[in-house]
């Protein structure tokens, strides 16, 4: 008799699903706690301070939301591509190209009123991000080139190009040799509302728009069908090439918008570090949301709490950054791992037998 057997679950009742997810969270906290304890810190102090570090005061809460905004917008972009099973790993590059285009406008166009300026920057950023995504989409649609490698490699081109600009042609003369692009003028910086830049409004609007686009438009339906089965899409008379390209323009456009938000509101200039890994993190959050736009909102906020809490314990408890990263990694491992148990049932026949014999 096999000692283990794994079978696919047919249907999972909602309460069982809740139990499995909760168990994953509890286990991850226990495991992370053991690691923290081995490293000589007190887990009973660390975890609460992660929570208070992310939510405990107005400033900390603002910091958390600041981290959630780029994550939400980027995740939505990734979601549109993933819905089509187009593995867009190029979020980083698309964010940077968007930031680059927005910065070009900010640094070279003078005398526009703030709303016009910001709108122009946003459009430029979305176009640039879209183009950066269009390149692999075109080759995928016309020649079947593997998009995973293609989008990944485009990241490095974007990163190196922005680095070149930052260290070379775009280096501000007044920075005294420090590799830094000039700060934006006031009219290129996003206004604030309730103490946080208006990116949070943009993020909320994007959630609603992407939700409607995917679930209630013909194009969104086409994207979903292409993702499920290309043959069916072909059978239904869909123009697959154009669907791939349109979806990727949207995907890259949203990532580019993230770049504009970060450049305008957070960095207030162009910097190679402004993407901060959001392009990759968004892949995880998009998956955890099961490609649902509404879920993206909550998953990204939860993730931002984790990020902000990690940053806080570094400062407040002198815990090294790598330990904070480990805690994040462990929590992610369990949450992602629980997906397996949600989809498959694991039986241990020998174990069950023994239990019966004992009883």
């Amino acid at each position, binding site marked *: 008799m096999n000692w283990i057997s794994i079978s696919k679950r047919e249907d999972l009742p909602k309460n069982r699903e809740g139990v499995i997810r909760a168990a994953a969270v509890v286990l991850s906290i226990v495991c992370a706690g053991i690691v923290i304890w081995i490293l000589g810190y007190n887990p009973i102090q660390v975890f609460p301070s992660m929570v208070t570090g992310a939510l405990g005061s107005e400033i900390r809460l603002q910091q958390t939301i600041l981290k959630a905004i780029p994550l939400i917008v980027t995740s939505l972009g990734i979601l549109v591509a993933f819905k089509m099973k187009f593995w867009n790993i190029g979020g980083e590059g698309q964010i940077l190209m968007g930031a680059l285009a927005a910065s070009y406008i900010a640094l070279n166009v003078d005398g526009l009123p703030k709303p016009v300026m910001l709108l122009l920057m946003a459009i430029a950023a979305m176009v640039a991000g879209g183009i950066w995504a269009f390149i692999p989409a075109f080759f995928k649609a016309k020649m079947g080139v593997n998009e995973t490698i293609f989008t990944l490699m485009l990241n490095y081109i974007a990163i190196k190009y922005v680095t070149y600009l930052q260290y070379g042609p775009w280096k501000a003369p007044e920075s005294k040799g420090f590799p830094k692009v000039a700060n934006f003028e006031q009219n290129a910086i996003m206004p604030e509302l309730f103490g946080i830049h208006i990116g949070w409004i943009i993020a909320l609007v994007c959630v609603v728009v992407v939700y409607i686009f995917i679930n209630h438009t*013909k194009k*969104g339906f086409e994207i979903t*069908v292409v993702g499920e*089965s290309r043959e069916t899409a*072909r*059978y239904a008379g869909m123009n697959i090439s154009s669907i791939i390209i349109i979806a990727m323009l949207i995907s890259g456009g949203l990532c580019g918008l993230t770049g504009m938000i970060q450049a305008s509101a957070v960095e207030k200039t162009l910097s190679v570090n402004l993407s901060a890994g959001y392009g990759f993190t968004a892949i995880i959050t998009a998956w955890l949301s099961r490609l649902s736009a509404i879920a993206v909102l909550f998953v990204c906020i939860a993730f931002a709490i984790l990020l902000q809490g990690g940053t806080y314990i570094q400062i407040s408890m002198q815990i090294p950054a790598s330990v904070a990263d480990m805690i994040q990694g462990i929590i992610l491992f369990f949450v992602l791992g629980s997906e397996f148990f949600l989809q498959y049932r694991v039986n241990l026949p020998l174990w069950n037998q023994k239990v019966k014999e004992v009883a």
Partner: protein
Amino acid sequence: MGQPLKAIEMKGISKAFGSVKANEDVELTVYNGEVHALLGENGAGKSTLVNMLSGIYHQDSGTVRVNGNEVRFSSPKDSIAIGIGMIHQHFKLVDVLTAKENILLGRSSGLFRNSKQLTKEIRAISDRYGLDVDPDKKVYNMSVGEKQTLEIIKVLYRGARILILDEPTAVLTPQEIKRLFRIIRNMKEQGCAVVIITHKLNEVMEISDRITVLRRGRTIGTVDTDKVQVGSLIEMMVGKKVDLAIRKEPPAQPMRPLLEVDNLHVVGHDRKSALADISFTLHEGEILGVAGVAGSGQKEICETIAGLTKAEKGRIFFDGDNIIGKTPREIIRLGIRMGFIPEDRLGMGLVGSMDIVHNLILKDYQNQPGIFLKRGPCAEKATAIVRRLDINTPNIYYPVKKLSGGNIQKVLLGREIDSDPRVLITAYPVRGLDIGASYKIYDLLNEQKSRGAGVLFIGEDLDVLMDLCDRIMVFCVGRVSGIVDPSKVTKEEIGLMMTGGKEDAAHELDQHQ
């Protein structure tokens, strides 16, 4: 000889996959020197049962005895070692190797092997059972029948005395089937036990000595073939009486041409010619059958008419308009009502993870105005189709891939006939369906015919083709070898046309004996 030896004795076998009980308390006894048919509808648990015999699965409970000794298989190797040989429906051969090399594969006895000695051994086995395969022929040069023969030699060479054949006739022409049955009879005379899985009743009656019927994972009973009627077998399989006559009414008169295919040439994916010089006319109110060995161009003709495959040259007239080179979108936009049931239902015709409503939208949304998707009309349509075709589903928002094969096909067919198509192309519409569902599909096709639609019916069971169709077009390697009236030809004649009218090995063998 008295009571013959029990080759296989399976008792109380149960096997579950997740919550699905594939086998429950199944009994099967096969004697040496008998041909035992395992009969049942799709999903009755036949394959699960024999996969346990061949060591692929392991039963949850129950015992298996081979030649009187209880056995426990932990892998297919154990099963082969004890003398059980399984011939799968999909052959497990390496195309670029010769027959001999395929037989040697997986035999780890020694580094080198005396090739001449092996040829001799193969010849000995071949002569003994009346098998005929050239040991040095490459597999890719072989016909389906030859490949199957090679599979049989392979398991016999490994010492099998118990043979299990899973749906062995599904891909064969009538001539090849005759030859296979002759081989099976030879093996029986040599004292082998043969288990044959099939759902074709006439073959069961012809070849088997005893029949075990399974239904929904349970043994319904074992009967002697010469003491049973086809009708009661069906009752055992289905659980109720089924009328097995396909009604056929004469086609509409006069025959108005609807779809005219003229000198069509299509190049396949491998850059080889897939269809050459195809010309035929489909009339209003008729069912035109297409017969042929699998892969003779059936898929290509369907997809070319539907606009999915580009033609090299040729013309296709729909009601007088040339539609060649039009994409499916253009065909829909032209207002041409064409229904297409592709061979691969979930891979092409439907989106498995979507519900019935969204699968209806698939064909409908392009005609909707605006950028938003309207679900309302399709939800009503879904409810109507579910009721009309008697689709067994919890509700219209249930993913279609979770439905049974018959219900999936009804969703697809329901969608395609919903627009009252003038041409309906159906590729293997009853493949994998149980008897009840198959007859429901035949009825629906007949309904379309009497409504005046032209139906192109790609089939694999010649009996069904002859009962259902008004005319049968026979394909042979991408060409039409003839269009015949089924009331005027025999199955064997169609079989000959399928293989290009060549006197094949089966006939040569006839003369030998």
